[in-house]
């Protein structure tokens, strides 16, 4: 896993490349940074599980490796997973039975927003969860 604090828009708090061997390390990093950005308790667990499923999809169905960016934006935490597969994630997301489709559907239940963009060079999945309202 390659980690850095590279700065592209939106400004990531965490950036890493991954293969199947880095799934556990990626998840722990996402948990740590998302907690630093303000997610706690069940909301943090849900966010981490959702990201884990999308990263797993990238490894299993998206070419075996990918990139992950995580950032805080105002009152939300966002994460973007880019895989290097042939595309088709939008169809996977809609499919009722396929394993990758279930992972995507599970992730949708765990975060406030999930967007999928296919391109010929891969798929981008963006997940956003609002921070808890305080005060």
């Amino acid at each position, binding site marked *: 896993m390659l980690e850095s604090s590279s700065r592209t828009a939106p400004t990531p708090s965490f950036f890493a490349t991954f293969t*199947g*061997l880095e*799934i*556990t*390390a990626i*998840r*722990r990093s996402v948990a740590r940074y998302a907690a630093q950005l303000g997610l706690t308790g*069940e909301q943090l*667990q*849900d966010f*981490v*599980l959702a990201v*884990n*499923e999308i990263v*797993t999809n990238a*490894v*299993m169905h998206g070419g075996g490796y990918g990139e992950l960016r995580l950032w805080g934006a105002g009152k939300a935490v966002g994460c973007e997973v880019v895989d290097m597969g042939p595309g088709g994630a939008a169809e996977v997301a809609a499919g*009722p*039975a396929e*394993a990758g489709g*279930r*992972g995507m*559907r*599970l992730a949708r*239940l*765990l975060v406030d927003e999930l967007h999928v963009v296919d391109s010929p060079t891969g798929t981008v999945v963006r997940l956003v969860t609002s921070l808890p309202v305080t005060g």
Partner: protein
Amino acid sequence: MASLPSFPGRGSFADLQLGDHLCLPVSSDTERLCGTVEFTGLGLRRDAKVIIFSDTETPDELAAHLPTLLPDAVPALAAGQVQVVPCRDIYLAGGAFDPGRTLAGFVAQVELAVAQGYSGLWLAVDVAWSLSGLPDTHTLVAWEAAANATIAEHPVTAMCVYDRTRFCPALLERVYKAHPMTPGQAPLRFARTLDPPGLLLSGEVDLTNHDALAALLCPLHTMPGHITIDATGLHFADLRAADLLSGVRAARRQCPTTIIGSTALNRVLELAEKTRPAEGRRPHA
């Protein structure tokens, strides 16, 4: 001495316990030797018997290193608490690899260690023996996965040392997934329980150790009577892990199955059910 890989965020090599099945990838003979010495020292501190199955070095060559690197090993070697044995003596006994006979051989060694008054048996294996001793790679992966169920039933800790420079990366990735523990990946601990009958699980399950969990759960599919899977110590489980666990309940049909989950596991079990196609929904026991 070369430094050993650690379990990032989940303790270190020194956290190994009875019942663990660890895959230790190394990149040199020195790393393998260091890992084997550290494992041996840890086993001795836990009052266990330690058997080192050697392949790259002869038992005499390996035993010659121990007094320098691990002074505690000198009296233990003399007393038989530490033994160095060629891999072929157990894996290729009878001339060819026979998984059933090999497992029976290991179980006999565990029972002997316990009868001798040790807390259990710690096994360090230089898996280089498989490079010339197995007909295909599938046999190796299947063996590693199948060993989990036997380890769950006995007081044994096993460390399988793989030299990255001698095994192809694609095979190693499959081998890692068959182990419940590989440094840097999700660690899964387990033990068969008698009262209540079933399985105790703790740690984490993700893509890196799905195959180990599947192999552990497989014998439960046909176990008679009411079983309990106590997974309260499982603090992370992904969708596939939830499917494997609820699959035990589905496979057992009329035999009751209780799954006691952590908050995290209960959450993913519930969500797994919600995302399952209607025709595949599983009734709760």
